[in-house]
């Protein structure tokens, strides 16, 4: 059985609720992630700002808006040991593309990673991890015979 922790990627992009939306936009732009997790000073998850939530405020004064104003409160606790089907059901029902993974062992509401639709599609496409590295080894080196 495929579990959430097999497909998710570890680590999240974080910001504090009082940060301006401008700085959230800069975080998203610089990191190439498509969401930012809003965390309290204590490290607990408060909400999620996806790239779509952010774009709704295009054209407004971003210095005057704070992350708390535009975030969606996040109430779903997805455990890394859940089967992937359960996580996909939540994504479909709520029409969201990002799920914050919360590990109960790391503390209450502590984010440890994110599962996105793209992570699942990578699994569905059945392209094996490591394929690109192998191709690079074939084509960039001096010796083609070192290819696996």
């Amino acid at each position: 059985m495929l579990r959430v922790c097999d497909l998710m990627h570890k680590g999240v992009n974080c910001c504090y609720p009082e940060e301006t939306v401008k700085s959230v936009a800069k975080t998203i732009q610089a990191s190439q992630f498509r969401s930012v997790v809003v965390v309290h000073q204590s490290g607990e998850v408060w909400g999620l700002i996806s790239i779509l939530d952010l774009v709704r405020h295009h054209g407004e004064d971003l210095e005057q808006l704070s992350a708390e104003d535009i975030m969606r409160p996040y109430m779903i606790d997805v455990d890394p040991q859940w089967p992937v089907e359960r996580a996909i059901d939540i994504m479909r029902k709520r029409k969201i593309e990002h799920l914050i993974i919360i590990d109960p062992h790391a503390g209450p509401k502590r984010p440890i990673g994110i599962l996105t639709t793209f992570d699942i599609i990578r699994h569905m496409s059945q392209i094996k991890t490591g394929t690109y590295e192998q191709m690079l080894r074939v084509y960039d080196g001096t010796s083609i015979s070192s290819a696996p």
Partner: protein
Amino acid sequence: MEKKVMNLMRKGALTCGENMSIREVAQIMVVNGARYCVVTNGNHQVRGIISARSILRAFGKDLDQIMAKEILLPYTIAVTPNSSLKEAVDLMSRKKIEHVIVVSDQPGNKAVFGLLHIEDIVTDMAKD
């Protein structure tokens, strides 16, 4: 001056045929690191777009048996390079889509001209 779609759009787009299986479409997306694929017919006319969320709907089914035309989000609203950016952003938030297909404003021509990506709008927002 009001910004237009042509200020932020990228020319060209990743496309697939309408009779391709979803597995192939997923592979095209993963290899190119894209979260969309524009579906065209034999005459290169736009039929619609497949996003990561539409492929997710087929999870657990036989991906080789489902065709791209069965899951695509049909292309209904024409956005041209001369449309206003606000209009396109409204369309994105209303339909919850991250990419908008831009077609040429010449009459009768429905080939893909380019694509407006959500990342480019965020880059514009992050600019000082």
